[in-house]
């Protein structure tokens, strides 16, 4: 199962995707769309731990979705959204800097109409209550399981 070449290539390629936007016409993306169970989504990952971000990126790729970038702060997330206009944002709540993920999700929703899925290890009810106010697609628990990620993404794809 451990293929050094493909894994490295895979991770690097997707990471570089944040710098060079990969659209539906990107041949790499097309390959993944073919194995996805539904239409491919362009996703922004907001996560300040790169190991987690890379893991999520790999999960997304496995499901046939593309990552438009990885942001570590709220401001960065907003900037990438402005530039890339992803279909959705996978948002960590605790971020580097003064603003948190709920703040960023709120701004992204308001400015670009892009909804978020919160991926958090934070289970405190007050934070959940705050997060619910920005109309998230859902909440996912860390460590992220592929089934729950697929289910969350399918709810977004379902109505459209």
């Amino acid at each position: 199962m451990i293929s050094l070449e493909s894994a490295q290539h895979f991770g690097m390629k997707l990471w570089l995707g944040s710098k060079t936007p990969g659209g539906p016409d990107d041949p790499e993306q097309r390959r993944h769309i073919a194995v996805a169970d539904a239409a491919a989504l362009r996703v922004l990952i907001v996560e300040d731990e790169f190991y987690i971000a890379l893991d999520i990126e790999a999960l997304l790729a496995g499901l046939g979705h593309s990552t438009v970038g990885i942001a570590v702060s709220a401001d960065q997330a907003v900037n990438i959204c402005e530039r890339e206009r992803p279909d959705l944002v996978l948002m960590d709540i605790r971020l580097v800097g003064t603003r948190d993920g709920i703040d960023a999700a709120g701004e992204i929703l308001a400015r670009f109409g892009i909804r978020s899925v919160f991926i958090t290890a934070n289970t405190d009810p007050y934070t959940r209550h705050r997060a619910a106010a920005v109309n998230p697609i859902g909440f996912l628990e860390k460590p992220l399981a592929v089934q729950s990620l697929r289910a969350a993404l399918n709810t977004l794809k379902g109505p459209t």
Partner: protein
Amino acid sequence: MPARLFHYGVPPQRIRMFLILFALALTLPLLGIGIFALSRMAGLEQAETERRVMQAAQDIAADIDRELDRATVTLETLATSDALKRHDFRAFHAQAVLALKRTKAAIVLIDQSYQQIIDTLKEFGAELPPTADPETAKRVFASKQRQVSDLFRGSLSGRPVFNVEVPVLEGDTVPYVLIMSFQASHIADLLRSVRLDPPWITGVTDNKGVILARSERHEEFVGRPLPVELLAQSRAAQTVFRGTSVAGEQILRATVRSAIAGWLVSATVPVWYSDAPQRRSELFAAVLVGTALTLGAALAWIFASFMARPLTAATAAAEAVGKGEHVEPLFSPLAEANILTATLSAASLELKRRQAHSEFLMRELAHRAKNQLAVVKGMALQTAKQSGSVEEFVSRFNQRLDGLAQSQELMLRQNWQGAWINDLVRAHLELFGIRERTAIAGPPLFLAANAVQNLGYALHELATNASKHGALSMPGGRVEISWSGPDSDKKICLQWTERDGPSVPSPLRHGFGHLVLTRLVAQALEGTSQLEFCANGVRWELHFPSSHAINAPVTAEAHP
């Protein structure tokens, strides 16, 4: 120890009970003193009464003796009169009548046959009976001395009388006895003339034990024998004694003998009178005890309620704290209870705060644990991607986990707020045992948690490479690690420079390590990094915003 009492099955008592006991402890000694003083006073009064009884008896005895002496003097004067010497009885009669002028007595002259020759109660020459009391006359004839009779009925008057008799001497013989005969009531008058309080009774009993005179109800008792028991007591008495009077009353009595007549002269007071001070003091004591105890208990009860209510409230407060409820401070008359409840209130707040804090910590712990699990998961995935075999994966993954653990350990020591950059660098170098050939230089900087973790990843990749393939893999190689404080751009710069290393191509030129050092760490810290491959080893430079450094950590240990 009083507390030991409660080991013997005495149940715990309310403070009310202890206050009542306290009041008793204060009251009882005072009551004891009061009762003692009262009874001592009563005793003194009793002794004074006894002294007065004795005094009265002695005074009356003296009065009676004086009266008898006066009679004796009158008789002895008459006994030497010329008329008597001349046997001129008519003249003597007249003389005797004159001598008696002021006295309610009779003077009688008898001869040796006890025949009355004259009697002042009768005219001279009237026919006279023999004396009704020959025994006393007999003693006078025999003793040639003055004698006083006991009580007898007068031969003429038939009334109770007594005689004072003196001899009439003619040379050595006693042809006549001169008698002054008194009615017993004369002594009764004398007794009554002594002013005493109404309950006092004085009396005279003759040598035969017959009542001769009495200050009260004289006519009723005169001539009656004294009760046998009382007579025996009176005869034996040296001091005041208690007995039953002829009237059947309980009495306190003193008896003194008349020196002249040998009669028993008594002064008595009823026991109810003499004991009055004692009874009064007992009554006082009872009232005192009753009042003191009632008042003491009532006051103790009142003050106890001042204390008991706040204490009950404080107890309830303590129970409430035990149940984790909030407690308000109390404002009561009892300062200690107020302090107690204030402390309990503060404690309840503190408990609440700690509970909230511990809930926060639990959530935080859960958050970190899950986050770290996600990190470890990602780390495993990335390590797997760069590993050619399971063995290689296990080895690399172990190292990365160790590196992560190092960073965690440092942050744990700083209450999860971050770590000193110096400690972080040393920790990651020590993991590979490569401290000796490294030079570390830079100002003390306290990095925030996110920076610690990410810089830790970079240092781990660099140290791994240096010890396996770089400058530290061969003797003579060195590593210099230096950092500078925030520059004008508010950036912190850290440099890793390997010197005197091998000139072989570094595996860091590609692969995951390359990605970490060129992109991931810089990206995570919102900074920039540069990885260069020089002839003698790797050179890495990282610039990141100084916002990742906390200048004054809240609970940081002082940096050495």
